[in-house]
């Protein structure tokens, strides 16, 4: 149940400002950690700004949607929703400069498949990825534990899909609305867009579901307000109703605001990211390969001093700034 879930306790935030603050904080942290020897102005040009990160992640959320849509075998909606949750949650506490979104994206989907009991092997999974599949499976499996750790192992996700079914059953039973099934098209379209917003980090899944149902109804020129006020909130009291109405209004406006970021800008940001990303987490970089090798060696030699790591860190930075 959502009301007792970790989703409500740890991953449902008060308002959008809180999300913005978290993201800015981790953007700043990354810059402070990796940009000590770059002067202020240069820093601004070299690293991604919070806004640029936001735009980039929006673009990758679109990629995520496309990836899931094209996935073979076809994927249940729950998996997509869960993957979106994971992706958003991960980048609340991490910068996209630290971990490249395209890697985290695949890992999120892979983990979501597991959690939502949509059984695909890693081989089957990477068959959906273009390019070097072996490398992709390496990246996914390497990142999987990191992702779970960053999610604090809160893996259960309450998606709005089941609540939608509940509302439809309830409406069919208690309302006189003619043929409620025709709302489905509008609902699905709405929910698809909802995941491109931060709504799922701010509102309960049932509120999002209700917003979807109400939105679809208004699109069909139906009015379900009486269902909400007289059936759902009959015993609740006006203050709770007011909160819900505000939430629904906000969710709908968020969905209305969804727009795909401009191609040109995203391309520039991606180029910038290639330069400023943390090379230690870039599987193509020499540092990453060296670190992996060292990790392998460490298994053989348990007494390697941790100093090695530290010096490695800084060498990575200097290499970044030289390039």
């Amino acid at each position, binding site marked *: 149940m959502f009301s007792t879930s970790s989703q409500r306790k740890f991953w449902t935030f008060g308002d959008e400002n809180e999300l913005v603050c978290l993201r800015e904080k981790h953007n700043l942290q990354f810059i402070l950690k990796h940009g000590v020897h770059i002067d202020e102005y240069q820093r601004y040009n070299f690293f991604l700004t919070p806004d640029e990160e936001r735009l980039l992640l929006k673009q990758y959320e679109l990629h995520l949607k496309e990836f899931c849509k094209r996935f073979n075998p076809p994927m249940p909606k729950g998996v997509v929703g869960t993957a979106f949750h994971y992706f958003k949650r991960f980048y609340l506490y991490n910068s996209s400069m630290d971990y490249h979104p395209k890697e985290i994206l695949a890992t999120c989907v892979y983990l979501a498949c597991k959690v939502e009991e949509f059984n695909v092997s890693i081989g089957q999974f990477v068959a959906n990825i273009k390019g070097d599949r072996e490398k992709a499976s390496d990246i996914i499996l390497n990142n999987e534990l990191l992702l779970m750790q960053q999610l604090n192992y809160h893996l259960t996700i309450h998606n709005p899909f089941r*609540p939608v079914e*509940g509302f439809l059953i309830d409406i069919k039973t208690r309302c006189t609305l003619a043929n409620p099934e025709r709302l489905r098209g509008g609902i699905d379209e709405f929910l698809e867009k909802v995941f491109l917003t931060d709504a799922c980090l701010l509102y309960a899944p049932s509120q999002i579901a209700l917003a979807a149902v109400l939105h679809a109804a208004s699109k069909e020129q139906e009015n379900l307000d009486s269902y909400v006020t007289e059936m759902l909130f009959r015993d*609740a009291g006006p203050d709770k109703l007011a909160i819900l109405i505000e939430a629904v209004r906000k969710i709908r406006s968020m969905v209305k605001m969804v727009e795909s970021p401009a191609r040109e800008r995203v391309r520039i940001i991606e180029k910038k990211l290639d330069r400023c990303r943390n090379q230690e987490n870039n599987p193509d970089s020499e540092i990453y390969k060296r670190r992996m090798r060292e990790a392998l060696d460490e298994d053989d030699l348990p007494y390697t001093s941790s100093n090695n790591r530290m010096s490695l860190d800084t060498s990575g930075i200097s290499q970044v700034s030289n390039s």
Partner: protein
Amino acid sequence: MDDQACPRCKTTKYRNPSLKLMVNVCGHALCESCVDLLFLKGSGSCPDCNVPLRRSNFRVQLFEDPMVEKEIDIRKRVLKDYNKKEEDFATLREYNDYLEEIETIIYNLTNNIDVVGTNKRIEQYKKDNKELIMKNKAKIGREEIELEEILEIEKQMEELRRAEIARMEQEAKKQKIREKEALIDELMFAEGDAKDILNTFAQTVASNKQEEVLPPVPKITQFSTGVKFTTRGLEQTPMVTIEEGPLYRYEAPPVPDRCGPDPPSLHEIMTQGYLRHVKAETETEKAGGYSSQLPCLRALQDALAGLYHAS
């Protein structure tokens, strides 16, 4: 052991087979009669080294080399104070160092190397670790008592077993004598053929023997782990009544705050027509234990839970 001899009276084991050598803390041996003679008053000094000794401290020499006996005495004395356990140390290394120190002290004392300095060292140690020593002593004392108890019980068991076996043997012997007498009586007074009588007796004896074949198995009263069987306790006390608390009663767990309107109950779902709008279970699904009510309830619960959620 034949060349054992008392250093004082030169009596050897050969001349006096009951010769018993005794040693005291200094490690010098004396025969029993010399001890009786020299320590008539209860105390005196060792004829070898003049160390003052007490008679009560003499004991039978177990090892050929009296130095071993001396070492045992010293070890006993030193360990009384150096009674730390492994748990008292932070690292294994420290513990090993400690053991090494003990060995050094014992070696020094047995071989008379720097006796004064070593004794000083022991005194110092005693002073420094007074509390810990006392604590460990108490602990060891307790453990010893337990051990003794176990030994005592074992001894009792052994005795009982032996008595039982002796009794049975006695019984068997008596039985044999009785049989023999009966046979002779029969031979003397019966009218029948002596051979027949012998045969019948031989048969009965053989059959009796077969019965007897099982040797008196010593009663085992303990599991191999040392835990006693409870049968003995049951013989003594008729029945142990187990204290039973109040019977367990199921209480439904509290329903957490749903943060939304109450969903219909399972009963309402069945009676108020919700099920008309849910895909009914097929025959195969029913056989597998699936029914459509629970998924329907779950969807409704999920729809309503969290509706009141406010940030």
